[in-house]
């Protein structure tokens, strides 16, 4: 199949105006030895064949089953209306709003998004979105380095391991040192301010990768005492009920927005967000929408503070980011507006409550989930099997679970289990039963 409009007559008409004998002749500037390469690509399919092929691939996946996966992506309830509205073709097929007069749709929706992120995080200035939570953390660290002139970044081991990997990728070529704070009793101990004298920032994640609540207030205070910035990596859904970064004094809030309004998408695209204090506004990366007026005095929105960006400042830009994650951020904004404060709270409270129910059920079945520290909707379950194998075995029982609490945490074989408002009694029963079968425990022994 193809999407070309030009008939042979059209081609002839165009070639005539151009004064070229053929389409191929238009490529004469290409050195002859490069022209018309053999490409190892299959011939085209018609639409029916194409969709049959895609459906066949899709049939080799299974996204159903009782779901206890987390690790940064969760399948929370999303009302149907969200994707209907976000996927309107006017939003989907627009470019970056460089002509604001005809892009008020995207621009206003983004301004509203910024306001929502600001409300959630308790910080005043949100950018228009970033790629994902991990890169937002890395950009947050770079921002701190720029702002403080210091070349060390301190990060809690409670920050998602993949995020820390990305941090490493971004910082090491610049010679910025990364210091990792080990967890004690599942959370980050507040360091002596003195130990942070070189630090541009301290980065902690709330709830942390294992699911537990960090002492954000204490971490922020120690960080500020040392003259560093506190970067809070937060789950926006949890902010329906948890103290906001603004409340505990974070300078920068970053995170991944998937939980508040994107499908899981096998990990992408969702979007990253960054919200900062006022004093960082001319240092922070990424697009931002501002409010102004038009010549008639009407409220209107426009991309602003562009002097930070690559297309203006080139090698002096605050970041190289150009395309952000506009549409997925818009989708989350719509979802947040659909939920409202009450709906978002219900998701958060439901997740908290179901996680307790899960822990109780596991304990009743003789397991020993780590519930000694306060947790939000995820917690660690030590198991007698390598997590990746456990995950595969559970899948055979229609259960999706087994995000590993990696070796670095010194917990032995252990997985992080995650619950949401959508977790049901039946899901929990199914997990307990499957665990019993997989780990060869006689189920009867635990009831």
């Amino acid at each position, binding site marked *: 199949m193809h999407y070309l409009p*030009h008939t042979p007559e059209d*081609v002839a008409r165009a070639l005539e*105006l151009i004064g*070229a004998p053929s*389409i191929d002749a238009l*490529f004469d*500037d*290409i*050195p002859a030895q*490069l022209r018309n390469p053999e*490409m*190892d*690509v*299959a011939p085209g399919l018609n639409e029916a064949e194409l969709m049959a092929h895609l459906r066949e*691939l*899709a049939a080799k996946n299974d996204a159903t089953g009782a779901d206890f*996966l987390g*690790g940064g*992506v969760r*399948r929370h309830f999303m009302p149907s209306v969200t994707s209907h*509205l*976000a996927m*309107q073709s*006017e939003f*989907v097929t*627009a*470019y970056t709003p460089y002509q604001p*007069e005809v892009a*008020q*749709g995207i621009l*206003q929706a983004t301004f509203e998004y910024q306001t*929502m992120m600001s409300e959630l995080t308790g910080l005043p200035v949100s950018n*228009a979105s970033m*790629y994902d939570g*991990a890169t937002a953390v890395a950009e947050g660290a770079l921002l701190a380095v720029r702002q403080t002139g210091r070349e060390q970044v301190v990060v809690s081991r409670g920050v998602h391991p993949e995020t820390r990997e*990305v941090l490493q990728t971004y910082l090491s*070529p610049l010679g910025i040192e990364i210091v990792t704070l080990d967890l004690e009793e599942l959370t980050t101990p507040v360091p002596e301010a003195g130990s942070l004298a070189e630090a541009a920032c301290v980065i902690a994640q709330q709830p942390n990768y294992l699911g537990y609540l960090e002492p954000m207030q204490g971490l922020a205070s120690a960080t500020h005492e040392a003259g560093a910035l506190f970067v809070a990596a937060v789950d926006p859904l949890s902010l329906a009920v*948890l*103290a906001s970064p603004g409340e505990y004094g974070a300078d920068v809030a970053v995170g*991944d927005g998937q939980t508040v309004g994107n*499908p899981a998408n*096998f*990990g*992408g*695209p969702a979007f990253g967000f960054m919200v900062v204090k006022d004093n960082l506004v001319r240092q922070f990366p990424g697009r931002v929408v501002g*409010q*102004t007026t038009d010549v008639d005095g*009407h409220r209107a929105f426009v991309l602003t503070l562009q002097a930070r960006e*690559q297309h203006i400042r080139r090698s002096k830009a605050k970041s*190289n980011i*150009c*395309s952000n994650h506009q*549409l997925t951020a818009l989708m989350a904004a*719509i979802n*947040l*507006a659909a*939920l*409202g404060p009450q709906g978002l709270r219900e998701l958060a409270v*439901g997740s908290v409550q179901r996680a307790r129910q899960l822990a109780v059920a596991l304990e009743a079945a003789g397991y020993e989930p780590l519930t000694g520290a306060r947790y939000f909707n995820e917690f660690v379950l030590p198991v007698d099997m390598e997590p990746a194998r456990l995950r595969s075995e559970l*899948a055979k029982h229609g259960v999706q679970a087994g995000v590993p609490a990696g070796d670095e945490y010194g917990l032995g074989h252990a997985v992080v289990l995650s619950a949401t408002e959508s977790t049901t009694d039946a899901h929990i029963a199914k997990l307990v039963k499957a665990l019993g079968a997989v780990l060869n425990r006689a189920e009867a022994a635990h009831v």
Partner: protein
Amino acid sequence: MSDASGMPRDTADFPLIFERSRPGRRAAHPPRVADVDLAELLGAENLRSEPPKLPEVSELDLVRHYTQLAHRQMSIDANFYPLGSCTMKYNPKVNEDAAKLFQDLHPYQAPETAQGALELLYNLQRDLSGITGMDGFSLQPAAGAHAELAGVLMIRAYHESRGESEQRRIVLVPDAAHGTNPATAAMAGYDVKEVATGPNGEVDVEAFKAALSPAVAAVMLTNPNTLGLFERSILEIADAAHAVGAQLYYDGANLNAIMGRARPGDMGFDVVHLNLHKTFTTPHGGGGPGTGPVGVKAHLLPFLPAPVVAKRGEGEEAEFYLDTDMPLSIGRMRSFYGNFGNLVRAYTYIRGLGKEGLRDVSGHAVLAANYMRMRFKELGFTVPFDRVNMHEFVAQPPEGLRTLDIAKAQLDYGMHPATVYFPLVVKEAMMVEPTETESLETLDQYMDALAEILKRAEEDDTYLANAPYTTPVRRLDEVKAARQPVLRHTFEASGD
């Protein structure tokens, strides 16, 4: 478009979603929740003191808000949108259907239950290698700029592996290059040196050679370049760069011009990134999410961001998996495996068109762009580098007219202007990229509108300065926006 809100222009501002909000309203009805004592479970000190002021609206008010906002927005589906360097081609609907088939997959689910997704990624890595002439691909980067960073970091790691990291401090970039190129090089810790565009609109080969030295780590180019011209000396450039040990980086934003006609891998590029949101029809989404796979030649394969998708066994036995065993990898560029939803869309596009179809794309894209160039000249525009161009060209308005004004006037005709004031090396630049999916009639209508604009401008010398007239809002005070930034809505004291 302008009256989507329905209000006559002079009566009211279009409302914010917050202004439609009333306490206690709601659209969504999540699963029922049992009561819990949050302070007890989470610790009172961990709770927020007041709820975030998210909008409270009914489902209908929500729908109306975002439907009306959609009407206040130009888009490919409703408007011709010939933005140069952006490849605003048609985004097929079948891509959307395909992406939906996979949208519920969790990145951490057991690989046995995601074999189809992994197979798709594997196939796409292979197809992109075939299209570009590279030896392997990472699908991780989230956009072009992100891919550039991955690519330059691989080059850096490569030099490091050869003990040359101290010595190589410089990345060469043409002065006409996209801003992300120098910004990326800086972000990867390099010094940026710009190479001037020669009088023929191509890299000045002698100046380029003069700039080369063993201190050069990489050269970043796009070909065709930002002026829409094919760099005819590309093989000489590549040889010269390689001769001093520099690596050659290909910014693939312009691949739509030469797909199936020439491959960056064959030109001598060591690293290539593609903008799937340009050449491969994944939607721009009003600014993203993009997707920027990055491909390399064999000597750079060990440095690719981990993981890549690999295959064990063949045929019925084949098993696809994430290969994390990459000790020399530059590391992760982001969480998980890339913007998978878009990778599905691009794969759908490639499989639909196939080898021949992809080659036709570039042929027709270049045809349309040259047709437009001739029509622009007919109208009195200047084309500074006037020869057969590739998928786009740069023009300048007739003497005395400003590009910005013409662009604004075009908005009244329901057509999007070209990319304006880029590249920086051409004054009053209009960079026009019609793409292969626009019919000649559409191109002709665009030119008819431009002709009418020029005529009106001649008849009435206030016309252009005041355009546009019929858009949802008119010219904005951008200075005020930047001087007194208002970056979020402020609620009235009352709390709503």
